[in-house]
């Protein structure tokens, strides 16, 4: 079979492109450690969140050396806690669940974005850098008030985080 020289050229180019796409996704996974939303969490009773040890009191707590867990409940139409306050330069795992309908959990302008399904816990771990205030929105239509369903994720300094937490304990 005779293949024209130019055709060989663009066959090679398209193979190169495929390798490049696969290569960069592999780099993303190996280098910066980009991962998918975990599906390892066990289902929970969406009606019984009041008795759940993690979600009866939605909060941010320290779970390791510079590692924090944020337990968040999405509902019609908001998120609790609001704002979600986390310390800077740490690793934060969000555990998000819904007590009514399907919601979205999107930290605006970032890659932290997951669906929130009643009865399921969405788990995403992110690395946070310096102090910053992020918006938080629901990106799944969840009812008449969907457009006002929002929250905040505030990344604050370590000191401020401790102050807030000790303040919270006193109150």
């Amino acid at each position: 079979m005779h293949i024209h020289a130019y055709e060989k050229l663009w066959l090679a180019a398209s193979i190169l492109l495929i390798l490049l796409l696969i290569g960069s996704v592999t780099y993303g996974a190996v280098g910066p450690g980009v991962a998918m939303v975990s599906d390892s969490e066990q289902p929970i009773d969406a009606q019984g969140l009041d008795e759940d040890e993690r979600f009866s009191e939605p909060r941010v707590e320290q779970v390791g050396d510079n590692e924090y867990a944020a337990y968040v409940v999405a509902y019609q139409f908001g998120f609790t806690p609001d704002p979600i306050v986390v310390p800077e330069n740490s690793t934060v795992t969000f555990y998000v669940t819904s007590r009514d309908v399907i919601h979205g959990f999107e930290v605006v302008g970032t890659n932290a974005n997951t669906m929130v399904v009643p009865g399921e816990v969405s788990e995403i771990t992110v690395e946070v850098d310096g102090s910053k205030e992020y918006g938080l929105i629901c990106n799944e239509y969840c009812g008449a008030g969907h457009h006002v369903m929002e929250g905040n994720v505030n990344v604050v300094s370590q000191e401020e985080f401790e102050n807030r937490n000790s303040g919270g304990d006193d109150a």
Partner: protein
Amino acid sequence: MGQNQAAHASSDDVSGEEEFDPIGTLTLIGIYFVILLLAWVYIYYIEFLGRDLVVVG
């Protein structure tokens, strides 16, 4: 006569095909290729990886 000419032309193909030289198409595909590469680099490395809160688990 016409058939003879056609037969004559196709017997010349072996040398004639390389003379078929779609340089314009090659250039166009080359430009598309470069656009695709730049777009991918921009979308993946700058927009996606450059954003805050990269999901790591």
